[in-house]
């Protein structure tokens, strides 16, 4: 009888342990920030989005990231309208997505506070086109959360985004993307 009781307690402790470790495998956010910046001698244009979704599986290093293009806010409404209708065509392609992998995942200790550099490799879909991209992200493990920052550049032509001739001097051919996410453990 005692043996059975001990067995049951042991079983439940294992279950609890499994649940805890499973819960801490995944980190996520629904309020990730994405900023893009186009710089030319004529004009600097920037826009921010603060509702990006991201999920990182720390066990495998797989990362998924999604952002809705209509959620980018510009200082000038006219630019926002042109961005949506002429460039990214957000009615046709409402979402941009990154699916990839942290290739040096074994070098990151998610249970130990500190700063790490994650090497990312994956596919970015935008404007109906999917391209391979490689970048790095600064990861900071702090108070059970993960702060992730990354800066990379995309070439508009890669995603078949055309710039009308009359504004070619105002919009840069490559756009700087800055990602800033505070990931929390998924419970």
């Amino acid at each position, binding site marked *: 009888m005692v043996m059975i009781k001990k067995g049951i307690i042991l079983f439940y402790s294992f279950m609890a342990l499994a649940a805890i470790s499973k819960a801490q495998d995944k980190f996520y956010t629904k*309020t990730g*920030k994405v900023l893009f910046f186009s710089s030319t001698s004529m004009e600097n244009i920037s826009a921010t989005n603060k509702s990006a*979704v991201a999920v990182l599986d720390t066990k495998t290093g797989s990362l998924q990231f999604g952002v809705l293009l*209509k*959620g980018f*806010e510009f200082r000038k409404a006219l630019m926002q309208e042109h961005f949506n209708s002429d460039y990214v065509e957000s009615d046709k392609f409402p979402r941009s997505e990154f699916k990839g992998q942290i290739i040096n995942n074994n070098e990151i200790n998610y249970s130990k506070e500190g700063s790490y550099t994650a090497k990312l490799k994956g596919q970015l879909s935008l404007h109906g086109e999917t391209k391979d991209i490689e970048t790095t992200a600064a990861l900071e493990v702090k108070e059970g959360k993960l702060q992730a920052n990354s800066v990379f550049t995309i070439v508009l032509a890669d995603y078949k985004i055309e710039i009308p001739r009359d504004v070619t001097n105002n919009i840069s051919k490559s756009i700087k993307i800055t990602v800033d996410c505070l990931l929390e453990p998924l419970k």
Partner: protein
Amino acid sequence: MLLLLVLLFFILKKQRKLTGLLILLTAGAGIWQGLKEYNRTNTDMANAAADVKIPSSELIKSYETSDSLSNKKYLGKILEVNGHIKKIETDDNGSYTVVLGDTSSLSSVRCSMDSTHQKDASKLTGGSSISIRGVCTGFNKDDMGLGSDVILNRCVILKN
């Protein structure tokens, strides 16, 4: 523009001061209108009329049934959504997101508050009913295990 100036020069030369002045004024008004349009900022949702009024549960159901069909109806439109406040979130920059929906379901309508109307969200309490106006920016389908969300941006709280 150059042509206009040359034209203006000739007209003024002919001493037709009144016509010249008129053209000058028209050109000035045109430039002013252009600059105004160029510098126009986004409309404050507090002063915008809603395209669609819909309960949060219906909006979620519509998107869960058909993503593309719902986008045709709601994407980029000004929506007035009413529903129960599931929770109120603040991010590390102090920006508020009001989450509407049924607490028993993972799916929600996430309303990201307009930067000039953040304070209004700080007074809200979970569980109460509310109407929110904002621009629908689309749908994040539950392919990451986080539940599905319809996203509203530049939101303002409406008095019930």
